[in-house]
């Protein structure tokens, strides 16, 4: 499994993702500059967090038109793996690779804090190392994490089991008190219909090492490795 971390002007968490894959997991990884039109043969593409184009106009609105996004879209269409983390999720939404849109946090403040998520689905390339319903500690840091989908889209997401992570309390309750930004149905991460494209607001690369307080994010990466070893086909 070869990983590719896309770097847009303004990406900040690219080096963090690279570090986790190369140093913590000892797996092959490359940077992919946003102007490239090929993905260098990478199997799993990561759109990292940060402030691409300063979040100007709307977060992710300008990055989605970067030359590399055509290759990313093609890769996704062919069943290739794509993960959008935080700003990366916002870019996937603007690009239409995932349904819905991102609004500003309901209290209008930026929140950098620990957060707990309930794992809603474990039969994906991204979550097969977690337990169904597991409560994990993966931090957030965003000002625009208020995920929105209209009633029809939301119904589809639920019906097709596309919600992968929801905000929860440490005790496991998925309720309003657990929701840091107002996102609809406490949604913290979703996949596309085919299940090969994941978008999530929390940062798994920030909790893949014990020294940073939680290792729950590491399981997302090891899930990918397990998926990769089991072959690249859609073996659910």
């Amino acid at each position, binding site marked *: 499994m070869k990983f590719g971390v896309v770097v847009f*002007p*303004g990406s*900040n*968490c690219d*080096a*963090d993702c690279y*570090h*986790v894959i190369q*140093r913590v997991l000892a797996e092959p990884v490359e940077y992919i500059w946003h*102007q490239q039109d090929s993905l260098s043969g990478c199997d799993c593409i990561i759109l990292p*967090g*940060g*402030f691409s*184009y*300063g*979040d*100007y106009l709307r977060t992710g609105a300008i990055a989605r038109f970067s030359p590399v996004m055509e290759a990313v879209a093609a890769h996704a269409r062919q069943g290739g793996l794509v993960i959008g983390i935080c700003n990366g999720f916002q870019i996937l939404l603007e690009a239409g690779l995932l349904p819905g849109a991102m609004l500003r946090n309901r209290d209008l*403040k*930026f*929140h*950098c*804090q620990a957060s707990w998520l309930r794992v809603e689905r474990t039969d994906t390339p991204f979550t097969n190392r977690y337990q169904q319903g597991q409560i994990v500690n993966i*931090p957030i*840091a965003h*000002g625009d994490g208020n995920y929105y989908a209209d009633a029809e889209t939301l119904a589809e997401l639920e019906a097709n089991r596309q919600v992968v992570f929801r905000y929860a309390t440490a005790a496991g309750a998925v309720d309003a008190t657990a929701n840091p930004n107002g996102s609809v149905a406490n949604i913290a991460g979703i996949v596309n219909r085919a299940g090969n494209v994941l978008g999530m607001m929390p*940062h798994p*690369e*920030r909790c893949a*090492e014990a*020294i*940073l*307080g939680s290792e729950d994010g590491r399981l997302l990466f090891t899930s990918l490795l397990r998926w990769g070893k089991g072959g690249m086909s859609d073996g659910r």
Partner: protein
Amino acid sequence: MGAEQAGAVCPWREMGLSDQEYQQILELLQREPNYLELGMFAVMWSEHCGYKNSRPVLKLFPTAAAHVLQGPGENAGVVDIGDGWAVAFKIESHNHPSAIEPFQGAATGVGGIVRDIFTMGARPIALLDSLRFGPLTENRARYIFSGVVAGISHYGNCIGVPTVAGEVFFHPSYEGNPLVNAMCVGLLRHQDLKRGAASGVGNSVMLVGARTGRDGIHGATFASEELSAASEERRPAVQVGDPFMEKLLIESCLEIIAGGYVVGMQDLGAAGLTSSSCEMASRAGTGIEIDVACIPLREHGMTPYEIMLSESQERMLVVPRAGCETQVEEIFRRWGLEAVVIGRVTEDGVMRIRDGERIAAEVPARFLTDECPVYYREEQEAEYYQRLRQFDPAVLPLPQALDQVLLQLLAAPNIASKQWVFEQYDHMVGINTAVPPGAGDAAVLRLKEAGSKGIALKTDCNSRFCYLDPYWGGALTVAEATRNLACTGATPLAVTDCLNFGNPEKPEIFWQFRQAVLGMSEACRVLETPVVSGNVSFYNETNSQAVNPTPVVGAVGLLENVEQRCGLAFGPDGDLVYLLGPWPAEMGGSEYLSQIHGVEAGPVPRLDLQLEKRVQQTCRSLIASGTVRSAHDLAEGGLAVALAECCLGRGKGAVVELPAAALTGSRPDALLFGEGPSRIIISFPPEQESSVRAAAEQNQIPCYRLGRVGAERLQILIADDLVVDLPVAALYEAWAGGIPRCLNQPSM
């Protein structure tokens, strides 16, 4: 003659130069300067750029040590941390702009200090801030406070540099004069260290980054004045920061340095192109020639004067290695940045500004830098000094309910949780933050590129102590900053300072300044922390009301093995709690005295620097040997508040029994809330007790058993008298809600 007319006849006065300084310029040039040349002198000779009032005093600081790779005089100080790695750091103020437009003032303050770091070849890896405002009961203070925090958040988060530590303090002396000090720390390999020197005659000089507009012209002189009602009209002087542009500059500049394409680099800050080009030439002993017609502009019809003095943000001067201009341009282009050759390095030592063919200004660079006048200001002991230090806090009544006092202190904004602030900062980006805000006495970063090392970072200043006794206040400030590092297990390496004072032309203010520097210098010497960089901010006065003397220290320490870092929260039930250092007994200058009794007086607590050193060393060695589980020093609120803070970390309670002997020559409130230095609370497993006592004895410091961690209440007994008995939940409610409650209350 009216002031306006006088200004027209004597334009130098409008620019902030005295008649005498103008005379000096005439003597140096042997002719009258033209308007542009006069403007260049005015900004370079301002206090902000020229340090004319402070230079003689700054020489008092100890600045050298074996591990100092770069001391004061460059964009940042650089200190070796071993294995070929080094850290660059500096703290700077952006006070005056933040008073007028808090969001952009604070944001551009962050931008400026970050540029000072990466211009040295270091990747910025952490930000810290030290913020001071008037009391939150006032609307204006709330507006400035929230604006400043939002501005730092906006800029720091966007560029992806974590804000990991800091301090926030509220006090009436900062009404109208908020203090916004921003510190940046960067990591570099020794071989990547770059200096801001324009060397190599014939080398090109390139300008890269944002286009030049009319932002902030004469911002340097603005920072060298007191604020008044007229200052509001100077609103155009505030610049707007573009953190996206800054992020592109960070990446591209580090790339050209890593590629070996650069001879020197300098960021454009106060006094814009004038000061950067002048300083680069001065440092190299060369001259510099610039053609303003080459400079990309944002506005139409800008004059050479406006171009040279513009403080448009996010611009850098780069001197490429001869023959490497193309590579440099290519790298900037890839990052979407405009990089233009605007001049070249010359050998005649002259700052020559052209506008196409015409020469617009011609001044030897050293006239603007080395020849800047130096003033030896008059110093006079402040009138209040003897009066206030003779006050004996023992005349104040002893409160009946000491537990209520504790709750009141925990809820006070100066002590309460700062989560409202740091939750707005991305403190995790970079995945190096091993001890985040609130978890320890200092932030601790692991260095993912640099093996097992860690660095500890903190900013500190007790401005109340500094007001009451500038000399000892300065020394206490350095002691506190280094003690905070020791509590995480780090060895202090060096410090940076931001000296915030009122008008130095007033003898009592200058006395505060010089005494504070003397005290800091002595402490730096004993505690072995040279001063490697810093900043002076004078004229923090409104309507002649000066801020408390506020010499902020930014301290950087090293952990050889970051796995040994130590936090402040109590651990498992049954752990013993000890005090390293003497019993607290002095209430002078304490937050307790101010909050509860409305008094700011008394002798400041005594500081024995040798004892302080030994206490820090003891704490450090106990952490390094894995003996202790937590360490937290006493600061605002003293022993009782520190114990509460240790409990709040993990929601643990404690039973603390203070013997009658602790009250000798003292009284209960002095013991619980006195803020004496050199005191650290530690907790550890019971089987380590003899090791702890042995370490204290070996280092010749007192140590006392306080009690045990357990249950969910904090109970403090003094001589078997139960004076505090509170559930941890009550402590939490007071402390966590302190600042939010203040902000939600109807204001005055």
